[in-house]
């Protein structure tokens, strides 16, 4: 620690600078910004509504008191567990309070009006969510505990949505008439993203092994896959329409298994091609990075090439492979939204429909689950990579 750092740490011993910033942002958001927006219908612009106007006086006072107490906790240097609980408690309380705004603001028979969060709500919510995620980093949880914490938060959020407390909010009003479509698009999105990554793994692991054992193959193979990865998603989807359409038209067995020019087939092929580069390069570089003495020790103890690969190189390479798989999966989950443009379905369907109708809540109905899915996949694989490294 340098002298400057030491004095900085000593100077701020009572306050936590990050917490101070987050508390300031959250409280000013709640006090000054609109807590909710009120739209006459789903397309028109919203009018801002302040915290005390949006909620009944006791609820508003309770929110403000809880937020102020939590702000003090996070602004001071407090134990990480306490900060985590404070962050999560306020985030949940804000959501529940927002859920009560529609019944306070809108007449029961007004079916068109939409209540959503205002930017004051977002500032406070994100600031406390940040404090909570920072607290999780500070707690240095073991991988399994991190996954358990993620599962708890997801279960809590799921319970909150299922309880009906948020049903009158604009996002859920978009969901209600589309509940069936939502879950079928969710299945498509999962099939597209996880299916194509699984396909890339099945193809990519042998290719990566080939790269590892034959450097002459590695150069051209990685060069080709890099070029593919450079091509923008919509262009690659579009360029695959023609060849797949030709296949479907000229090969009865292809159309029999559901391959056609538009829809899920070109999207699936394109996403698999994208995911191949990280898998192939990941396998090759992970295998190349296994320590030479470990491999030599294996040879000396009489292992065959194959045994050395399976018993020594593969376990040593696993953490790096899982790390590159994390990036691949997160990227594929995001790219799968674009597939909706060529009629493949998935959460992107709602995003592009919402864009077309300028209905932002419909956009969010597609975007929020995509982000949640990518985030959950990222945390889970990150934990898996760390567990494999132990």
């Amino acid at each position, binding site marked *: 620690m340098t002298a400057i750092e030491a004095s900085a740490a000593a100077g701020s011993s009572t306050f936590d600078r990050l917490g101070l910033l987050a508390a300031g942002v959250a409280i000013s958001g709640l006090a000054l910004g609109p807590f909710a927006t009120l739209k006459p219908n789903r397309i028109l612009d919203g009018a801002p509504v302040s915290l005390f106007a949006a909620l009944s006086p006791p609820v508003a006072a309770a929110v403000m008191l809880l937020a102020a107490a939590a702000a003090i906790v996070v602004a001071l240097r407090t134990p990480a567990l306490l900060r985590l609980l404070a962050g999560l408690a306020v985030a949940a309380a804000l959501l529940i309070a927002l859920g009560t705004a529609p019944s306070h603001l809108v007449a029961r028979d007004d079916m068109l009006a939409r209540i959503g969060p205002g930017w004051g709500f977002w500032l406070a919510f994100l600031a406390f969510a940040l404090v909570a995620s920072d607290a999780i980093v500070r707690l240095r949880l073991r991988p399994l505990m991190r996954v358990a914490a993620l599962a708890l938060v997801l279960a809590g959020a799921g319970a909150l949505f299922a309880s009906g407390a948020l049903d009158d909010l604009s996002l859920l009003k978009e969901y209600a008439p589309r509940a069936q479509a939502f879950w079928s698009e969710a299945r498509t999105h999962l099939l597209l993203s996880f299916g194509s990554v699984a396909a890339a793994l099945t193809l990519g692991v042998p290719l990566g092994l080939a790269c590892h054992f034959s450097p002459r193959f590695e150069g051209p193979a990685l060069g080709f896959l890099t070029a593919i990865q*450079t091509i923008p998603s919509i262009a690659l989807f579009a360029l695959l329409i023609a060849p797949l359409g030709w296949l479907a038209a000229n090969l009865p067995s292809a159309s029999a298994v559901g391959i056609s020019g538009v829809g899920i087939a070109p999207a699936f092929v394109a996403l698999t091609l994208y995911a191949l580069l990280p898998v192939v390069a990941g396998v090759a570089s992970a295998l190349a990075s296994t320590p030479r003495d470990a491999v030599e020790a294996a040879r000396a103890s009489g292992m065959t090439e194959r045994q050395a690969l399976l018993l020594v190189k593969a376990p040593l390479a696993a953490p790096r492979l899982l790390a590159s798989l994390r990036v691949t999966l997160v990227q594929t989950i995001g790219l799968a939204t674009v597939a909706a443009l*060529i009629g493949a379905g998935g959460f992107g369907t709602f995003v592009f429909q919402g864009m077309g109708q300028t209905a*932002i809540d419909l956009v969010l109905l597609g975007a929020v689950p995509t*982000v949640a899915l990518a985030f959950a996949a990222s945390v889970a694989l990150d934990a898996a990579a760390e567990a494999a490294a132990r």
Partner: protein
Amino acid sequence: MNVAFVARVALIVSVAAFLAAPSIFEPLLRSLAPEGAPVIYRHANLAELTALHLGLTALALAASALVGVILAISVTQPWGREFLPLSRSLANAGQTFPPVAVLAIAVPAVGFGAEPTLIALIIYGILPVFENALAGLGRAPARALEAADACGMTRAQRLRKVELPLALPAILAGLRLAAISGVATATIGSAVAARTLGEVVFAGLASNNLAYVVQGAGLIAALAILISDALLAMERKAAEAFPV
């Protein structure tokens, strides 16, 4: 002269030829267009759309490079180090956000057109620049930093003369990733009425004209590959100039 070089020159020549005189390529694309439908996209000049596409990407890239590098410098200085773990996890979380969603959410704030696309491009470009600049700033070996301090350099001088040059290859690598995702996001920007080459692809998808789809997508793919190649060459030059 190797295969990759020949392929690159051929790509540049065909892009230039296509933009200068698209009708030369009409016989090639003819079979893809429906009977009686136009083969070459004529609603807008393809060269102009290409220029708009590249201009939008370049403008956003400049902004994200500036913001990303400044952010990375801030959190590696003594006064900003407290925010380093947080900004790391923020950048990680940001990458889980699909660019399409950023684009869609920017529309109500600024309206349709080039602006929401520019915002999405900038936000999405900051992340790779920031992450790579961070890795690059950490690349300076301790002995180089000690030598700089021993010469009596101030912190700012050390940053400018030692740390930033050593980080340049990594920053350029981040810029290349940002450029690739930028070309892609600018394409989707056509969905919110930004004037880019995506327009050609979308027109083709809407009217079932594969000739449009192929010429738009082919141009975009060629541009992305050429831009990535150029930035990769710069990255190698920088790594040679400032070896660690």
